[in-house]
């Protein structure tokens, strides 16, 4: 029930962000500012509406809800999610490392290279924190 209310609030928030984008656009604000607002608003609104609609459909069709819960809680599906996440993490680390080298090779500003390197370091720190947490 609480989640339901949250999705309604989130969809309202998404709509408000889009309206703010339109309002600022009419006031002559640059697309650099309004663009991210449209994107963020659309994302939040879309995601919330999908969740609201799927919950309404689930209420009307308990069998569908049961199927969905089985799919979500199925241990093999969970295992596949973990494995996929881990593979993506490993690929991301290589991609970020490559980006760091490329940014240096292309002579991009130092803060850009440092930012990407920072993400790699943060990723690694988080990896060890969670690994330690889950191994307890």
């Amino acid at each position, binding site marked *: 029930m609480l989640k339901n209310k949250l999705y309604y609030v989130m969809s309202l928030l998404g709509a408000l962000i889009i309206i703010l984008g339109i309002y600022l656009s009419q006031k002559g604000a640059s697309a650099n500012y309004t663009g991210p607002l449209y994107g963020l608003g659309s994302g939040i609104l879309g995601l919330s509406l999908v969740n609201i609609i799927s919950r309404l459909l689930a209420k009307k069709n308990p069998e569908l809800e049961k199927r969905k819960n*089985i*799919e979500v*809680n*199925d*241990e*093999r*599906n969970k*295992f596949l999610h973990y494995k996929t996440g881990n593979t993506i993490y490993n690929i991301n680390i290589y991609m970020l490392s490559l980006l760091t080298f490329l940014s240096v090779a292309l002579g991009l500003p130092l803060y850009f290279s440092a930012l990407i390197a920072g993400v790699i370091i943060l990723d690694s720190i988080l990896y060890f924190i969670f690994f330690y947490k889950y191994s307890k």
Partner: protein
Amino acid sequence: MKNYLEKFRKELGITQSELADKLSISRQTVSSIENGRYDPSITLAFKLSFFFNRKIEEIFIYEE
């Protein structure tokens, strides 16, 4: 890991979907276990053991 899941399921005359429904797992999981592509957790192995009323080692064959 090899197993006799398909044999025991067929002995009971139930489909993969029916077994999946009884154990609240997906049909794909039943299929993957039967084909040896996925080794179930110990919890699911016990569920299968209780469902077929057989010992775990009668259903699954451990090979080093």
